[in-house]
Structure formats: structure tokens, C-alpha cells
């Protein structure tokens, strides 16, 4: 009975009309995003320039790309903390092979495949051994970062071909949109369709909301999760290529700690950390709001401590608001017996 209620409550993309829709966090985030943009354009002339937007978006490349598979994982009630380490490993491997005289056209597909293998290891440990993904990926986070150091030590490799560096750092001529972000837009559209308009997407929400129910409904939970981890590894490794070319520097410590920024963006975007709830539109807004807010604060010379505090507060508010909203909703629904929690029946 309890499980039944939960599944119904967490059905994918609940269609809510009227004022109730405004309580949805992903809608609030979109509104906040617009507010940041308006505030930015209103308070400093340096914000809403094509140049600045290109910088701000370019800075988000890796976070944005990795946020896509991370959203799918979190919706399915899993998480991957090793993404930044896979990025670092990919960067280090790229540097080591480049130094060894390999062609960049060979290195890039190879590191992406290695990234997928890293994801496969995570996925196998989680799905075949049944270990919690939080623990597994804390382990592989250190493991992959360690491998990166084994490959490159504390050295840095640079001087990558200019044509590739430009592709990673430059904006599409005439627009403020850097190439990696254009790719992100494309992939985000695909991810949105998969998550919100296909059976697989519905399966992900079902798995996140109630793993056993999903299993008994015939969803191949383990296989789908395995694929998600492989995807996360693959995208992270590709993000490593982008990162390395963008900065022109392959190092083992590249993107240290980036996994937290990615997860923050996903949560700010309104995805429930317990799985089963969230929209990709919210995540895109979450990624943008974190990036643009940081950019705006930097333009206003706000110190880095305050910047992290603002992001932290935003994260807490984003986790808290849906909870509060749910309480409010529950209170309103109290008279309806089928949806009210069991304790709530006592007064009647």
C-alpha cells in the first residue's frame, strides 16, 4: 500500500496545472535564472556582452556535459562521484600519449573508450556486486585519480594542436556559444527526449522511485544502471578531452573536485537526490544559474569565499524548497484519505 502511494506520487513528469506548477523547483530555478540575467544586465555593462557570455558558457563546458549522465543516474537513485577523476585520468592519458608521439585523432577515441571502461567498472561493482554507488565511486574516485598521477606524475603536457584547442575554446562565429556548449545543447535535447518521452526514461523514474517495483514491473534495472555508469564514464572522459584542449594543459590534477560542482548543478536543477524526481530542463537551468551567478559575482569583484557561500546557500534552498512545498501540499490534501499519510488519519 505504502509503495503504491509512493509510485503514484513520484510518477514521471507530473502534470500539474495552475498555481501548483509554480511550486515546482525547476520552474523556480528557471525564474531565478532569468532574475540573475536581468540583475546582471542591469547592474554591470560587462555582463550581457557576447564576449562575456561566451566566457561564462565556455567555463561551464565540462560541468554541463557531465551533468547530463549524472542527471540520469541521480533520477535512477544512483550517483557517480568518480566523474572528475575519470576526467583527470583522461586528461593525463591524453597528455602521456601525446608526449609519446601518438596522433590526437587516435588518442581522443581511445581515452573516451578508457573512460567508458572506467564507468563499466563502476557499473559492474554497483550492479553485479550490489554495492552502494556512493561507496563504490568514492573508491574509484581515488583510484582513477591515482592512476592519473601514475601516468603523468606532477608534470604538465601542453602544446596541443591549435585547431583542436580552438574547437574546445572558441565560440561559433557570430554567436556567444562555444562549440562544447553547442554539443551540450544537442546532447541535452537527446537526453531530454530519452528521459521524458520514452519508455527508458519512464523506467529510470520508476527505478529511482521504487527499485523493487520497477524490477517486478519487468524493467531490467541492473542492465540499465550498468549502461548509465558506462555513459557517465564515457562523457566524463570526453569532458577530459575538452578540458585539456581548452586549457592547453594535461595534468593529473585537472578538474579536481569538479564532481561536487556537477552534483550541485543537478540538485539545484531540482532533481531529487533520492531518485525518481526531476526534469532535464531544471538541470539545464541549474547548470546555467551556477555558471552565470558565479560569473556575475566575479564581475562584481565578490570574493571567492562569498561566491562559494552563495552557491552553497542556493543548493540548500533548492533541496529544502521542494520538501517544504511537499509539506504544504500534504497539509492541503489532508481531507483526502487515500493520499494522506497514515498518521494524518488520526484526527478524523
Amino acid at each position: 500500500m505504502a509503495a503504491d502511494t509512493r509510485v503514484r506520487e513520484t510518477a514521471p513528469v507530473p502534470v500539474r496545472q495552475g498555481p501548483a506548477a509554480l511550486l515546482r523547483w525547476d520552474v523556480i530555478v528557471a525564474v531565478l535564472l532569468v532574475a540573475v540575467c536581468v540583475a546582471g544586465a542591469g547592474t554591470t555593462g560587462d555582463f550581457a556582452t557576447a564576449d562575456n557570455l561566451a566566457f561564462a558558457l565556455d567555463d561551464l563546458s565540462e560541468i554541463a556535459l557531465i551533468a547530463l549522465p549524472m542527471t540520469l543516474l541521480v533520477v535512477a537513485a544512483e550517483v557517480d562521484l568518480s566523474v572528475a577523476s575519470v576526467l583527470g585520468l583522461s586528461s593525463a592519458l591524453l597528455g602521456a600519449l601525446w608526449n609519446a608521439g601518438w596522433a590526437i585523432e587516435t588518442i581522443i577515441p581511445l581515452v573516451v573508450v578508457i573512460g567508458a571502461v572506467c564507468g563499466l567498472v563502476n557499473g559492474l561493482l554497483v550492479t553485479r556486486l550490489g554495492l552502494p554507488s556512493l561507496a563504490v565511486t568514492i573508491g574509484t574516485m581515488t583510484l582513477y585519480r591515482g592512476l592519473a598521477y601514475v601516468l603523468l606524475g606532477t608534470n604538465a603536457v601542453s602544446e596541443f594542436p591549435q585547431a583542436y584547442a580552438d574547437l574546445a575554446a572558441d565560440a561559433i562565429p557570430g554567436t556567444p556559444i562555444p562549440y562544447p556548449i553547442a554539443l551540450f545543447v544537442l546532447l541535452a535535447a537527446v537526453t531530454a527526449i530519452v528521459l521524458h518521452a520514452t519508455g527508458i526514461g519512464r523506467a529510470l523514474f520508476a527505478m529511482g522511485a521504487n527499485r523493487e517495483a520497477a524490477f517486478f514491473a519487468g524493467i531490467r534495472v541492473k542492465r540499465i544502471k550498468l549502461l548509465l555508469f558506462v555513459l557517465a564514464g564515457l562523457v566524463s572522459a570526453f569532458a577530459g578531452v575538452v578540458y585539456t584542449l581548452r586549457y592547453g594543459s594535461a595534468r593529473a590534477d585537472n578538474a579536481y573536485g569538479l564532481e561536487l560542482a556537477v552534483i550541485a548543478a543537478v540538485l539545484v536543477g531540482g532533481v531529487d537526490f533520492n531518485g525518481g524526481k526531476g526534469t532535464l530542463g531544471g538541470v539545464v537551468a541549474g547548470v546555467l544559474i551556477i555558471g552565470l551567478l558565479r560569473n556575475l559575482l566575479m564581475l562584481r569583484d565578490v570574493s571567492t569565499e562569498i561566491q562559494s557561500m552563495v552557491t552553497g546557500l542556493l543548493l540548500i534552498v533548492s533541496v529544502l524548497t521542494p520538501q517544504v512545498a511537499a509539506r504544504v501540499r500534504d497539509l492541503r490534501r489532508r481531507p483526502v484519505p487515500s493520499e494522506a499519510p497514515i498518521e494524518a488519519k488520526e484526527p478524523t
Partner: protein
Amino acid sequence: MTQRTLGVVAAVAVLVLGAAACGGTTKQSTQKSDQGGAKATGSANPDAPLKKDLKLAFLPKQVNNPYMTILDGQGIAAAKEIGSTGKEVGPSDASASSQVSYINTLIQQRQDAILIAANDPNAVCGPLKRAMSREIAVVTYDSDAAKPCRDLFINQAGSEDIGRSQVRLAAQLTGGKGKIAVLSATANATNQNTWISYMKDELKKPQYKGLQLVKVAYGDDDDQKSFQQTQGLLQAYPDLKAIIAPTTVGIAAAARYVSSSKYQGKVVVTGLGTPNQMREFVKDGTVTKFELWDPKNLGYLATYAAASLKSGRISGKRGETFTAGKLGKRTIGADGEIILGPPTVFTKDNIDDYHF
């Protein structure tokens, strides 16, 4: 699942091999020859007035690093002295790429000069080039960026000065007679090895013929190991007169060992250290003199260099000179380097003026 996965892996493998077979862009095929020094553009007019109301931005390796704070603070004060404004912005971690978004922001803010201590000489290169293309003067200090990506580099002290001056200190403190040893960082540390080679060269001069370098020990910039190496040195050479440690970790560990041993007062400890680390050993008499470049002057000089560049007094060419306030005249050396000058010697009389 396995068949399909295998299929995908196989397809990718074929792609990889195909790409490899076709050759492609390798490091060899892209070796460029742009490793020249800073390209100085335009001509300089040494008599041009120093512009006022310039906006100078200091971008340290990381904020809240005491050494960097002193350096930038003095740079900002110097900016005020010449009627301009300075500010310090930067990341809280000293990672390779975190400075990049700050550079981009400073470009947007149309600063007149960016003064940066680079965390990674290459990662900051692209954005700094972009800044230079928008007529922003780029001056590196403390830690250089790749040469084509900045106008000037303010070097805290020339390697030669640092090496030779430590021998001079040791000679002064020992009276120029006796056995001396060097306690270095790691065996392949570039900085230390350069300095030590200058030390050895300095020791060849006739006035140091009484000094005999008996050993170079390596403490690997590890406090414990440096401590043990000091102990080992003194056991092997009980009549040792001086230990020169050209590393801040080494000198502090050596001083700590000597201060609590029977050798206190008998063996001289000197080298490169920070006043905060060495204060107690200077006060208890273990250490009489040690040296390091003065971060205050480094920030000060960086500001004057940036302002002179922006005012057209210098263009970055070798041999140009400019006046850097109270520090006097400075000359641009090879590759756009300006050397701060000989290191500052710290003694019990001046150590309390320094806090880093």
C-alpha cells in the same frame, strides 16, 4: 547485452586503429617555433609621464596565502602611490585552471593591467594572449607564464644572486674557515640545483679558500627527512661549521635540530627561509642570518613595471630601463625578465618587520 556491447567495442576499436593507420596530428607534426621571448611592440618613450587612474588587477596563485597577500598588498599600495587603483582577485585553490575564469573576468572589466603569479604556465596562456590583444598589459610575478603570453616577468631574484649570496652569508658567519655542507630539497629540484651550482662556483673564488664543501644532502623538502639528514651530517662531520639550506623546509628543520642539540652556537645554519618559520630560531640564537627575496618589494616592482608599460615608458624590449619608485632603476633583461635584485637578509633586528 554482452554481444551488443562487444559489437560496440569492436566497432570503436576498428575506428581507433583506422585513425592510427591514417596517421594524423602528432606532437612532431605540430612542433611550433613560437618559443621566443615576449614580443615587444611599439617603441618606448622613457620620458613619458606615468599615467594616472590605471586599473591594476593582481591575480595571485591563490587568495589567503600569506606570502601572496603581502606581495599583492604592497603592489596595491604602490598603485595608490602613483595615483592608480589596484585590487586583488583570485581563486581559493592554487589549481592549474582556476585562474582562467578570473583572467576572462578581468578582460571583461577592461582592466589596464593584469599582474599574475601563474599556477600553470600554459593553462593561463590563451586567456592572457587574449588580454594582450586587447591592450591589457600582462605582467607575471613570482611564477612565470609561458613567455609568449606575457609582456614582462618580475623575477624575485636571479638564480645567480641567490646561489652566490648564500655562500657570502656562510663565509661571513663562519669567518671564512671550516667545513660546510648543503642541505637541499630533492636531488632533481631545478631551482636548488641551479643555486647549488652557483654556490660551488662562488666557492672557487680565492676569498673562500678556507671553506670546504664536504657534502650536499637531500631532505626532499620533507620536514622529518630534512631533520634526520641534519642529524646525519653532524654525526659524520662533528667539526662542521655551517649548513646552508637553500629551501625553506630544509632550513627550518636544520635549525630545529641544531637548536635542541649540543651543536647550538657551534654550527651556523643559513639559507633561504621565511621569517615566520625562522623567528624562534633567530630569537634563540640558533640562526643569525638567513635570506629570502622580499615579497613586498616584488609586488611594488610589479606595479611600477605594469604602469610603466601601460604609460609607454617601456615596451618590453631587452635593455630598456625605468624607475621603480623607491627601488630605483631597473633594466629589462633577456626574455622580458626584470630581476628584483639581491635577496633580503633577515636578522634579529629586522625579522619582526616581516610576517609571512
